[in-house]
């Protein structure tokens, strides 16, 4: 419903929306989007890439190893096309004659990628993101298909951002509930109230350098299996190490 928009540029957007309806994670949705880019945006290899604050890239999804190799080269060289504002485009028409990023371009050409187009998406997981299109031929990405590619990136960007948001909220809720259950386990084992149990979890977290969320996960997965004797390994009082 939310993803379907009338589009003057010919793009199978309803198919994209239908395919994304199966997505269970942002990674899964990114794989679907990259696949869509392959079939509908004329790429030989495509991927969804995010960039941390230092500009280092990592892949949410790629359709071919070569795009991972290109980004590994880029991160190693600290040179090459990368993070873009949403709606911006970089086109590299022939990596054999790359002037802006000579070393990276030479590496890309060695890997058999002769032209690329990077399209800026909405931020994902709080990081800049691009949709990368690669071709084994030079000059694959011209001005005639620019509008269509930008429209495709717009749809993909909005859809992925929506999934990013809902995944974030869903995981936040799960984590919070897991911590509440862990709190209950500590309350019972150590005969303390909710606030003391929380303070206990925080103290253990600080002294053991393990996040509260991970402590809670360990405690509750132990309880879910239902095999441990709740009294034996946990005689320690609040404040002591577990």
């Amino acid at each position: 419903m939310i993803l379907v928009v009338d589009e003057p540029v010919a793009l199978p957007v309803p198919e994209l929306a239908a395919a994304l309806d199966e997505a269970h994670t942002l990674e899964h949705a990114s794989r679907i989007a990259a696949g869509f880019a392959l079939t509908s945006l004329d790429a030989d290899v495509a991927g969804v890439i995010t960039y941390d604050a230092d500009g280092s890239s990592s892949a949410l999804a790629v359709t071919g190893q070569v795009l991972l190799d290109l980004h590994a080269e880029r991160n190693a060289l600290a040179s090459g096309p990368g993070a873009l504002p949403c709606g911006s485009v970089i086109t590299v028409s022939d990596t054999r004659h790359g002037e802006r990023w000579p070393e990276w371009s030479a590496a890309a050409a060695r890997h058999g990628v002769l032209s690329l187009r990077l399209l800026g998406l909405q931020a994902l997981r709080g990081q800049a993101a691009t949709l990368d299109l690669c071709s084994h031929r030079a000059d694959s990405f011209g001005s005639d298909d620019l509008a269509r590619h930008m429209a495709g990136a717009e749809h993909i960007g909005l859809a992925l951002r929506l999934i990013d948001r809902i995944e974030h909220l869903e995981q936040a809720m799960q984590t919070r509930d897991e911590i509440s259950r862990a709190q209950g386990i500590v309350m019972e084992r150590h005969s303390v109230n909710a606030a003391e149990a929380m303070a206990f979890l925080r103290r253990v977290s600080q002294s053991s350098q393990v996040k509260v969320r991970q402590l809670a996960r360990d405690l509750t997965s132990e309880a879910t299996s239902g095999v441990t004797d709740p009294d034996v390994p946990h005689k320690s009082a609040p404040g002591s190490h577990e």
Partner: protein
Amino acid sequence: MTAVTEIVMSLMDGVAEETSLPDLLCRDACRRLGLSGAGIALMDSSGVMEQIAGSDERARTLENLQLTLGEGPCIDAYQSGSLVLTPDLSGDGGKRWPGYGPAAQGLGVRAVFCYPLRIGGIRLGVFDIFRDRAGTLEDEELGLALDYADVAILILLHLHSLELERSAAKPVGDSVRAVDPALDNAFRSHPEVHQATGMASVQAGVGLREALLMLRAHAFASDRTLDDVAHDVVDRAIRFS
């Protein structure tokens, strides 16, 4: 104007009142769809529901019933990710839920329709609507209710983002549950069901899933809500051992 635009326009006019956006959405859906009530709840895979909005007390009671019983249309809609349409609770529809069916009818409810709140395969909860008379939703009504569900998702995401921004600007407090203040502020949460589940699992030496079943069974047997029983477990007025 698209249907979603109409819904959002209608909500914008109500915002001035002292009512939350999810509550406004439920009331607006009731008005335009001729419903007896509507509610929004967040859910998890164990069927624990957290009420976000309800058009009236009865909408809240209906959701609470499912939280306590662990069965009902909302739980089915969440778990299947599909619409659950029950145009007549007094027919076969009601038999699907031996506890919920008769109890909902006892409240005067005859038809219940539940929409999962989901994007792709990721589920947040449900939007549930009901009527005091039996009868199916017309195609147009089904579609409009779906639009309300879409807007409900956007509102939940919006409320969460707002609080994330607010809490990012503030230093982390040291309250009992300062683990995720954004979530707590966006959605009044009740941690006691989860805390009581953890406590009961240690008391009885059983897994968490079984502990929740014990809490529900206790609530059912004593004709109380799961919330009440959980409160008593946390207060150490009830023990499971």
